[in-house]
C-alpha cells in the first residue's frame, strides 16, 4: 500500500483474558479509501476495528500491546483524549441504534456535546449531515418526529449522518448492512462509495460480495492474524495466500 495512510498498526496484539484475539497485526489503512476486513466469525475483524477508536477500553480484562497511529500520532499516548479520538474516528454498528429522540436531536447531539450551541449552525450541520448520508429528502419534512419511526435502512443512514455530524476523519462500520434488506443495503453501499471522497471508511463484513463491491482494499483475517491485505481486485482475482483463496472461494468459513 504505497498510498497515503491515515491509520497504521504495528505488531498489534490483543488479549481478552487468556484469549490471544489479535496476533501481531501490522497494517496500513489508506486515506480516502474504503478498506474491508473479511474473515470467518471470531477471526478478530471486529476486535481490530474497535481498536481504531479504543472501544475495547470499555471491556474489562483487555490487554493491548503494539502500536496504533492515527495521522502518525500514537492513539495510546498518555495525552490522547479518547473523546476527541472517537470524534475523529466515528463508528456505525451492526444494528441501527438511533437515540429515542427526534431525527433532528439525533444529529445535533454530537455537535452539542462538542460545544456547538448556535441554532443556525446546528441547523446547518443537521441538514448537511443528512444530505451526506443520502437521507435528507426522505426526512426533511419530519425532522422533529421520533427517529424510531424510520425504517431499518433509514435508521442506519441516520446513524451514519449522526457520525458525520461531528466531522470525523475515519468512519468504522461493523457489519452495517447485516440487519437490512437488499434495497436498503444497496443504498448504504452507494453511500459508502460517496463517503470516501471526504472520509476514510473501514468496514467489517461477513459478506464477501459486499467487500468486493464496496472496497478498494481488503484485509483477510484468520484466527487473530492478518493473513493478507492488498488491493481488493488483487485479493479477489488472484490472492497470494492459499488460506485467502480457500476462504473467498467458499472452501471453508
Amino acid at each position: 500500500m504505497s498510498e497515503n495512510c491515515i491509520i497504521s498498526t504495528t505488531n498489534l496484539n490483543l488479549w481478552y483474558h487468556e484469549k490471544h484475539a489479535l496476533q501481531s497485526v501490522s497494517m496500513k489503512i489508506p486515506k480516502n479509501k474504503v478498506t474491508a476486513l473479511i474473515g470467518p466469525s471470531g477471526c478478530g475483524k471486529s476486535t481490530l476495528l474497535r481498536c481504531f477508536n479504543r472501544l475495547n477500553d470499555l471491556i474489562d480484562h483487555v490487554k493491548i500491546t503494539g502500536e496504533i497511529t492515527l495521522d502518525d500520532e500514537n492513539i495510546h499516548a498518555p495525552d490522547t483524549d479518547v473523546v476527541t479520538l472517537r470524534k475523529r474516528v466515528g463508528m456505525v454498528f451492526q444494528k441501527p441504534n438511533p437515540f429515542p429522540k427526534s431525527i433532528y436531536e439525533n444529529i445535533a447531539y454530537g455537535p452539542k456535546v462538542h460545544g456547538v450551541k448556535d441554532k443556525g449552525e446546528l441547523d446547518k450541520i443537521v441538514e448537511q449531515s443528512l444530505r451526506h448520508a443520502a437521507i435528507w429528502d426522505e426526512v426533511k419534512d419530519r425532522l422533529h418526529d421520533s427517529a424510531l419511526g424510520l425504517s431499518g435502512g433509514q435508521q442506519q443512514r441516520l446513524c451514519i449522518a449522526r457520525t458525520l455530524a461531528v466531522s470525523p476523519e475515519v468512519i468504522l462500520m461493523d457489519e452495517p448492512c447485516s440487519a437490512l434488506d437488499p434495497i436498503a443495503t444497496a443504498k448504504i453501499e452507494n453511500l459508502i462509495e460517496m463517503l470516501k471522497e471526504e472520509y476514510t471508511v473501514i468496514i467489517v463484513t461477513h459478506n464477501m460480495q459486499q467487500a468486493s463491491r464496496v472496497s478498494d482494499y481488503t484485509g483477510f483475517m484468520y484466527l487473530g492474524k492478518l493473513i493478507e491485505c492488498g488491493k481488493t481486485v488483487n485479493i479477489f482475482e488472484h490472492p497470494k495466500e492459499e488460506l485467502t483463496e480457500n476462504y473467498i472461494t467458499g472452501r471453508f468459513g
Partner: protein
Amino acid sequence: MAEKFHTDLKVLKKDTLAMSALGRLMLRNAVDALIRQDKELAASVVARKDELHKMEVRIEEHCYQLIALNQPVAKDMRVIACTLKVITASMRIGRYGKVIANIVKDISEKPHIANLMSIPHMADLVIDMIDDSVKAYETEDLSFIEDFSARDDTIDALRHSIFREGITFMMEDPRNISRCTHYIMVARYLERCADHACKIAENVHYMQTGERIEIH
C-alpha cells in the same frame, strides 16, 4: 452451497475436455482424410460441426449460469474465464478441421504433389500442441506448455517453408497451382490451430497463477 458449486465446476471442466477432444478429432481426421484422399472420412468431419457448435453453446451457458448464481472469485473465477477461452479455441480448431475436410473433395482426383510436402509432419506437431495445452488445462500442470514459444516458432517456420515450396511447384508447372494453393491454405489453417493452442496455454497459465503471459 460451495460444495455444489465446486462439483459443478468439475462437470464444466469434464464437458470442456469432451468438447476439445471433438475439435481435436475433427482436425486429426481432416488431415488424415487429406493424406489418404478419403472423401468418406472428410464427409464425417463436416457432419460433426453442428455437434461441436451445440457443445460450445451448452458449455458457454453453463459458465454464465455459474457466474450468475455463485459470483465466483479467485481461482474459481479464473477457471470459468479460462474455460470460456478454451471452448472458443476448440470451436475454431474444429472449424479449421471442417474447412480442411472440404478441401479434400476438391483435390482427391490426382495424386498429391511431393507427398503433401511437410503438411503431415506439421499437422502432427500442431496436434501435439493442442493435446499438451488441453492436458495442462485438465491436470493444471504448466510443464506441458513451458516450451510453447519454441514450438510455435517451429510451426511458423514450417508454414513458411510450405509456402515457398508451393510457389516453386507452381512456377514449374501451372497445372500445380490449384493443388499447391490448397496446400498453402492448409498450412495456414494449421498454423492458426497452433495459435489457438497457444491461446489455450496462455489462459491455463492465467488460470493457475493469476498472471498473464503472451506466447509469441
